[in-house]
């Protein structure tokens, strides 16, 4: 009985030592959080605008609601990047980051108005070789003119594709961030995209859909 008491006490001490040892082991082997995996797709933002001129935020909201309620199929609108897209960027213009504005130009008159009122205004007048966009061109083609405002000139914008759903045209683009810290200059991107006239015939609204790719490590300054 007495020997059992000694043994029991011994076992308790051993157990306590093991517990203490366990505590020490834990301090040397901290576990790292496994949640929050790194992902390229940090955020997706969508801004709607109207295709009818002049651009109006109020109009865009109303139009979007209608378009979203439709059960129409989403179709990709193929365009030849190397030959039919013209894009420019510059700093200094823009009001709010993420703003997307755009129009569909269906005639030389539309183009001329855009050139005078917007391309001229925002210093994009040399973006287009307007001589190529004649009446003949617009017989079976149209131009999608889109502007995107970003919060930094260090961010890279890529126009990816166009999709059509019912009366809504979506311009998909990607914003690439190389590092967490970037310059604090407002930047403005403009693209002119040639598309088949028939494909955008019914379009009444134009929507921007952006995805941000973060090439920088997560976190800032630590």
């Amino acid at each position, binding site marked *: 009985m007495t020997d059992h008491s000694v043994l029991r*006490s011994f076992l308790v*001490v051993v157990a*306590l030592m093991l517990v203490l040892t366990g505590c020490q082991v834990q*301090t040397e082997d901290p576990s790292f959080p496994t949640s929050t995996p790194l992902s390229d797709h940090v955020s997706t933002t969508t801004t709607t605008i109207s295709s009818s001129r002049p651009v109006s935020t109020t109009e865009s909201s109303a139009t979007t609601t209608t378009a979203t309620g439709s059960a129409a199929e989403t179709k990709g609108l193929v365009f030849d990047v190397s030959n039919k897209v013209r894009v420019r960027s510059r700093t200094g213009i823009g009001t709010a980051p993420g703003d997307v504005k755009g129009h569909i130009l269906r005639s030389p008159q539309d183009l001329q108005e855009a050139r005078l009122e917007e391309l001229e205004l925002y210093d994009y007048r040399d973006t287009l070789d307007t001589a190529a966009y004649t009446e003949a061109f617009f017989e079976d083609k149209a131009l999608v003119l889109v502007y995107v405002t970003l919060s930094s000139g260090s961010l*890279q914008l*890529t126009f990816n594709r166009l999709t059509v759903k019912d009366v809504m045209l979506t311009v998909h683009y990607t914003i690439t961030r190389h*590092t*967490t810290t970037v*310059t604090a200059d407002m930047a403005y991107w403009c693209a002119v995209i040639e598309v088949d006239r028939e494909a955008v015939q019914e379009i009444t609204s134009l929507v921007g859909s952006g995805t941000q790719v973060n090439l920088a490590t*997560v976190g800032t300054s630590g």
Partner: protein
Amino acid sequence: MRFTNKHFITNRVNRFVSFICVLSLMMLSLFCPVAAVEYERNQSKISTALLQQLSSIDKTETIPVAVWLNDIEYDENAINAQANATVDVIKSTITNEKTTLNQDNNFSFLLSSGDNPEELNDTQLFLEAKRKIFFDLYTQSNTTRVETQLTADTTIDAAQVTWVSHFSPVIKMNLTKTQIISLSQHNDVEEILLDNRSIFPQGIDDDIFSDDVVPKSDNPTQVTTPYEVWQETTNITYVKSLGYDGSGVKVGLCDGGKLDYPNLDANKRRIFDTLYREGRLIADPSAYVNDPGHAISCGGVIAATDGSVPGIAPGVTLYSTAGHNRTGGDYGAIEWLISSGCRIISISAGGAETNTYEAFSKWIDHIAIQHDVTVVFSSGNGGSIGICDGAMSYNSITVGASDDRNTVSRIDDIHAPFSSYYSGSSTSLPIKPDLVAPGASIEIPGVNGSVASGIVSGGTSISCPIVAGVIALMYEMRPSLEAKQALTKAILLAGISRCGSLTRNSVAGSTITAMQTKTGAGLVDAKAMRYIAENGRFAAGTMGSGVSAHTTTFNVSSTDTYTRVCLAWLKNNRISNSHITNSPSNPACALLYLKVQAPDGTVYESKRNGGNVQLIAFTPTMPGQYTITITKAAAPSAEPNVHFGLAWY
């Protein structure tokens, strides 16, 4: 008896074992919490971002980290005395020799920048000497600790050390996960951070449609606020008309690319022709040119000497650096500016709108107070998303953007919607931005081939160098202010005339500060700044442990005089004090209150329980003598001395 004895002995053994058990239990209860606390402490030394990163790398992969060590122990008064003694030695040598110093007998070993002491005023001499003392202290301390402790106690090889700070207890290394864990248990280590801080260059022309990119126009259209309008709005034109141009002041520019004149585009660099020819455009030899477009814009706002319009302070010497790809990143770049003798550092970076008081902000606070440098930050272009990293620092001056709406009038100016502001819920953090400057599509200095032509730019990137340029004008007026960062901020924030929604008035009987969430103290005003600086309408000092209040008076001559009083103070941020006694992410800051009493007894107060600025603005109801009272509400016991600046307009 034998049985009795055996039983007695057995009982004694049992009692002894039981005693041991109880003792063990007591030890368990005592040490397990200690072990747990120690575990927590070590874990907390590794930043959250770094922990996340570590979860995705394997054991052999290394990752760049910034290791913050315990700060060096020093006596502030002793350092100042040593610096003053150095100044005395230099000045007496110059006087006794009655000769011009040359390269062989300069005092570069006593001054951080190696400048010719004959070209420095007394304040600059003192600051240079002080920086040199700290340079030597930190260099020796950090190097020694790398050689004798960190690498000796761990498996870290000296070759893994990538950068050693000369002005703070920070070392950068490339470490494996195991090494980071091991290092976090080192007593000398305060915090280990992911080292990913460097401003990415503009690079805006590199898009995927490179085959079809239309080059930028060489003749940009003037579509927005012309240079002369926003300079009128901010009264910079007025101050420059008095002959001020920032002469004698060194301004640093930390950007995504550096202004290495010979390697700049032949057209774009023309705005710096004179600056470069006169040896006043100096590029960091360790930095890369990268894409300097953004740096040209920001540097041009401050110091353009040629082209369409001059910069705000074309008389300054402009030092240019870039953290991207540079050893030490932005830390290394900024330290180069400090060692070069810059008094003002302009950093137009954003994008990482953390809205928190993070590591880079803490480091900026440390640098600003210890090395007497005025750091000016852009707030970022994220609007309500929040303030970008670094700009939440208490001791920096954070600048947001205003929209001048293309008019000279200040009354119709508004907050630019993209301009970032602190939108968090913490009342202990400072209100940021501290003030605003034009930044919504304005014309800045530029060149179009052989023809001078302004270019349009926008964002808080432009607002930031506008304020940096105004500070350069201030330092030219009052060189002694170069050593007084709190007073610099107080003068800027008090020196603002009415500007509509960008400012607001205090209410008699209320304790709410006149600082506003989105626009801080309001729109920068060079004329009001000059009025305060030249007329000495300020006070500065240190409130030590035995001092709880400070009082001064000023006279108001007319009831239509818009009156503002600003109190700013510095956050002491020696690393060890902040980290050991407080959470690493929230070092203590002293708290001061401000009160102004009118001759008729009317009281205006600013008692914001956070940050390090109090502001009162009102239209006086009667002329006469007004009394300002500063009250010390709290100060950390480890850092009882509170350096403050007070200005009234």
